């Protein structure tokens, strides 16, 4: 009878050991899962700004902002070699802030995952969104992690007169909702 009871203690001891190991493994695994989050957001802001600065109007397949699109037909976009960021800078230099906001909204649709909020500033002025909602303002102030990417943008305002605009600081802020 005594020998049989000892067996229970060993089983209990082994179960306790497995429990401790399981808790430890869980803790380590959960640390690994949580930590990459900052770099993910960081990459998102870099990638978004790279997308804007590396994509040219002529390469954009977009009925609003691409070649032959609405803005092209209206004459608001004239330089097919402009990058999207340069086009935004050009709108800013001409004081066309509403057009810039709509342009950003259009070209960035589905580029940034919906669980993130983002802002685009040119030369220290917010162009997107020009009037942030109270929810966006609240999420920005409460977020634990917000990352930014910056670039300098410039361009030719008028090819006939060879006048330039810029150079402006373009800044993207991305944070989790």
């Amino acid at each position, binding site marked *: 009878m*005594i020998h049989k*009871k*000892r067996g229970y*203690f*060993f089983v*209990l*001891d*082994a179960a*306790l*050991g497995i429990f*401790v*190991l399981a808790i*430890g493994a869980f*803790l*380590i695994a959960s*640390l*690994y899962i949580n*930590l*990459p989050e*900052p*770099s993910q957001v*960081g990459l998102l802001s*870099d990638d978004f700004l790279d997308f804007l600065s590396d994509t040219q109007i002529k390469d954009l397949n977009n009925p609003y902002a691409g070649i032959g699109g609405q803005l092209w037909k209206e004459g608001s976009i004239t330089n097919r070699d402009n990058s999207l960021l340069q086009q935004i800078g050009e709108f800013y230099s001409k004081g066309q802030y509403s057009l810039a906001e709509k342009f950003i909204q259009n070209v960035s649709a589905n580029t940034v995952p919906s669980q993130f909020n983002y802002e685009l500033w040119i030369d220290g002025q917010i162009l997107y969104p020009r009037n942030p909602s109270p929810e966006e303002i609240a999420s920005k102030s409460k977020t634990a992690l917000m990352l930014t990417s*910056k*670039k*300098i943008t*410039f*361009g*030719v305002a008028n090819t006939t*007169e*060879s*006048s*330039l605009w*810029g*150079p*402006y*600081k373009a*800044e993207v802020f991305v944070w989790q909702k």
Partner: protein
Amino acid sequence: MAKISKKGIFFTFISLTIMAILIVIYTPQADITIQKDTRAERVRIESINNYVNGLENEFMITVMKATAQKTIVSLNLYVNKTQSSVKDFDAAFAEVMLNGTIDNAAIDSITGKKIMENNTVSNWTARFIEAGWDTYNVNTSIALGNVTASQATPWHVSLTLKMSLDVKSNLAEWKRDNVTLKTSIGIEGFHDPLYLMNARGSYSNRIKISEVEFNQWNITLAREHLKNGTYVHWQNSDGPSFIMRFSNTTTNSSCCGIESLVNPNMISPEDQIGSYVDYLFWNQTYISQCTQLYNITNPAAGNIGLWDEFRFFKLDIDHLTKYNITSEYAIRSC
């Protein structure tokens, strides 16, 4: 009752100790922190590297093209205003493009047009230095060297700018000494300074390139050429290049010489002794050689040539051949 063995507790301690060691060794916090720091530094260095490359390969090239265009426009206005040639084109071009001055006087004040004000290479580099500090928190120094404008092809002006660059950040320093930047601009659309200074402002002609091939010329195409004021480049040309025209130099530039035909309806008097090929006309090459000139008409042969529209227009024998105007359309002017 036998005493219960307490050996099990040792197993528990052993497992806890192993767990503690494993947690200490594999704790991700320390590892990730190093990665984060390394990544942050890598991203910053990449960003500044892109900034330096962008400055050298994109910004300065764009600025060179834009300011060179403005410089040529300003020099044309200068020629028109002063009715004099640019004595030393290379020096004047560099001075206007870098500083907006000519012989130490602001060119805008001479021409009366605000073109170079806040638009010189020096102005733009200063703006970029400020943007670099604002954006990347880096100290940028740019030492501008000499600027040259030359022609190796008839329709483009080649530009070179020497500069040294130093960018300092808290992580690294980028130093590039004696960098030579090269680009070019087309001359089409600019006024021809030869007309501006010789016609005393009464006749200007913009550079437009003729699309006629050298072996396709005939009297009809010559008429269009004259009417439209277009320019042509002949192989081993005897005419001056575009930039030579600023200093009223009419000697030949075999690589880059260009020429147009002077419209007799635009000058006074219309009838002058000279070949109406622009550089020959303005430097009066044939003023005492009327026997070598031909009116482009031949009433005896029943051909009016260009006389109906361009009365008194004359060409020398060499250009009669070049424009393929045959003898049935030409008679000696004297």
